[in-house]
């Protein structure tokens, strides 16, 4: 292991190279491009270990991943924003077809109008597509999560999206502890899943079926995904043994007596984590796994600590409703005996979260009590 200075995008690419990838499929889109470029450089130096193909669109990129995964290959692609939106049909198709695919999505606002800032609405609008989604708060986490995503995806036969914020994570550099190739490959092992397309054994895949059959497939997929939190824990204990660090589906820091907790996913989680010592009596939950939603884990933390209020940082907005993480949380805590109040901080458009904003949310009188929704722009 060695520390290297790298961006979040490079960290994603290095992780992919370390897995012993079979196929990388690339199509450029800001702010993701550095991921596939780094992989292209591995390829040019003969160090990728697999094939590298660049195609004519994001749709083609994911379709190509699907084809290779159906043939038993370990695959990767990366995209952002409009690229992800354009893939939408194949995103559903991959999970319906139960092929393991790992894709990085670098959050960026979806237009119109054009905007490059890291709104999370791109990945969140793929919430119901049957993909696991894991949000990362820094480059180290990106590297580790991409590696772990292969084990999750190949075991559950469900695709997994590793998500991180454009620019704040994709383009900023930090010291990253990079596993050497041998230990990374020993940790992940070769692809363990069965190919759907097998030479010499022809099959008709994914043809027309009836609703009665489809419901069984949907249920299987749902039940498979519900296994993800436990599997993630197992993968992380093994990861900790090998590499000395690990992650939960959520991570929490709740000081004794704290009745207010801030919940965040992605880069804003890092801002909250670093602000915590200066925010009296406030706890923190980093939402890492979003699909499946770690309801049990969150509720257990909230109940154990008797949390009365959760401030949710939503760098997104479902028009007509509000922040998506807040909605999910409200639904998750609904059955608790003493559900906490949920306050939604909307940073849609990808606007930045500052310490001063957090301070006014936690300390100013006008934001206490029953204020359900606060627009980040009003805090500036």
């Amino acid at each position, binding site marked *: 292991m060695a520390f290297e200075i790298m961006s979040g995008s490079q960290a994603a690419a290095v992780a992919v190279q370390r897995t012993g990838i079979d196929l990388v499929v690339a199509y*450029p889109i800001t702010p993701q*491009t550095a991921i596939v470029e780094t992989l*292209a450089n591995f390829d040019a130096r003969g160090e990728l270990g697999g094939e590298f193909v*660049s195609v004519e669109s994001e749709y083609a990129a994911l379709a190509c991943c699907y084809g290779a995964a159906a043939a038993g290959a370990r695959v990767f692609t990366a995209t952002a924003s409009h690229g992800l939106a354009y893939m939408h049909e194949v995103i559903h198709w991959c999970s319906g077809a139960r092929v393991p695919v790992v894709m990085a999505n670098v959050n960026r606002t979806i237009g119109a109008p054009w905007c490059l800032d890291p709104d999370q609405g791109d990945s969140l609008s793929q919430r119901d597509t049957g993909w696991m989604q894991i949000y990362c708060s820094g480059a180290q986490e990106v590297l580790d999560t991409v590696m772990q995503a292969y084990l999750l995806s190949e075991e559950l036969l469900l695709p997994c999206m590793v998500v991180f914020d454009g620019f704040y994570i994709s383009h900023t550099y930090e010291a990253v502890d990079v596993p050497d190739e041998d230990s990374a490959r020993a940790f992940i092992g070769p692809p363990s899943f069965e190919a759907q397309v097998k030479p010499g054994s022809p099959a008709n895949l994914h043809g027309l079926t009836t609703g009665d059959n489809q419901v069984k497939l949907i249920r299987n997929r749902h039940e498979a995904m519900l296994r993800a939190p436990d599997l993630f824990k197992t993968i992380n204990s093994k990861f900790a043994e090998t590499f000395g660090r690990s992650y939960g589906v959520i991570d929490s820091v709740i000081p004794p007596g704290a009745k207010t907790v801030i919940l965040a996913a992605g880069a804003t989680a890092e801002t909250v984590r670093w602000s915590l010592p200066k925010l009296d009596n406030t706890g923190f939950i980093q939402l890492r796994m979003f699909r499946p939603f770690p309801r049990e884990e969150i509720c257990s933390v909230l109940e154990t600590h008797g949390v009365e209020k959760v401030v949710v940082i939503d760098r997104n907005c479902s028009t007509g409703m509000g922040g998506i993480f807040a909605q999910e949380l409200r639904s998750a805590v609904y059955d608790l005996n003493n559900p906490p109040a949920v306050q939604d901080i909307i940073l849609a458009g990808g606007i930045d979260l500052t310490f001063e904003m957090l301070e006014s949310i936690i300390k100013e009188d006008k934001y206490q009590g029953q204020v359900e929704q606060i627009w980040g722009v009003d805090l500036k």
Partner: protein
Amino acid sequence: MEQLTQDFLRTKKLPHIWCPGCGNGIVTAALVRAIERTGFDQKDVVIVSGIGCSSRAAGYLNFNTLHTTHGRALAFATGLKMARPELKLFVIMGDGDCSAIGGNHFIHSARRNIDLNAIVVNNHIYGMTGGQHSPLTPTGKKATTAPGGTLEPAFDLLKLARGAGATFGAKGNAAQPRQLEQLIIRAANHKGFSVVEALSPCPIAYGRRNKLGGAVDMLREMKEKSISVERAANMDEAELEDRTINGVLFSDDAPEYAEAYYRSIGKDIG
């Protein structure tokens, strides 16, 4: 002339974002002068663009302008043209935008022979995202997604257009902007789907990686390699190797789609 050209620019939006030496400004200026020469009413002109460096031109031009999604500019423009057939539409696209992600819309616009003027700024690369190879990157040229040189053959865009049904195709370049201007005027006056492929230097994301020198070197090479359709007609294949044939490569007659449609519902849009 000077003043009128200024009227066609949103000067408040300037300076533009293009790199020093980029050909996008030259192509945009040729387009502006061409529109001026056609005498089209400013309020009837619509500029539609997709995504990429060249597509930023829509923001700088003082007409009705529509900046759309990657590869889809022609589809947006088709809707506009069908609803308001009297409008004069210029669709600015880059090579990746037009021929990769937007390839489908390109061939179907050609097939319909709808009266749109596609200005394809071909710099052989995805410039805005930092230099990935496109379907118009010549085989062997380097890109960030092909650091050892791309293995893929490139499209011949104008042959593709004609094969799909386009009725006007011309090729020009940023090194010969007056000729480019004339080609755009011809395209604008042609009824049907017109494609003007404008070769343009991208010294930053393409030239540098392929050791083609600076913008001036790239423009010089562009000019030296270029040969007119008329002169090329008397040359054999060996002589034409590595040359770019410039000018109007085809101009055919076929029914235009919007006109045919309106006639079918009993309206004559002339």
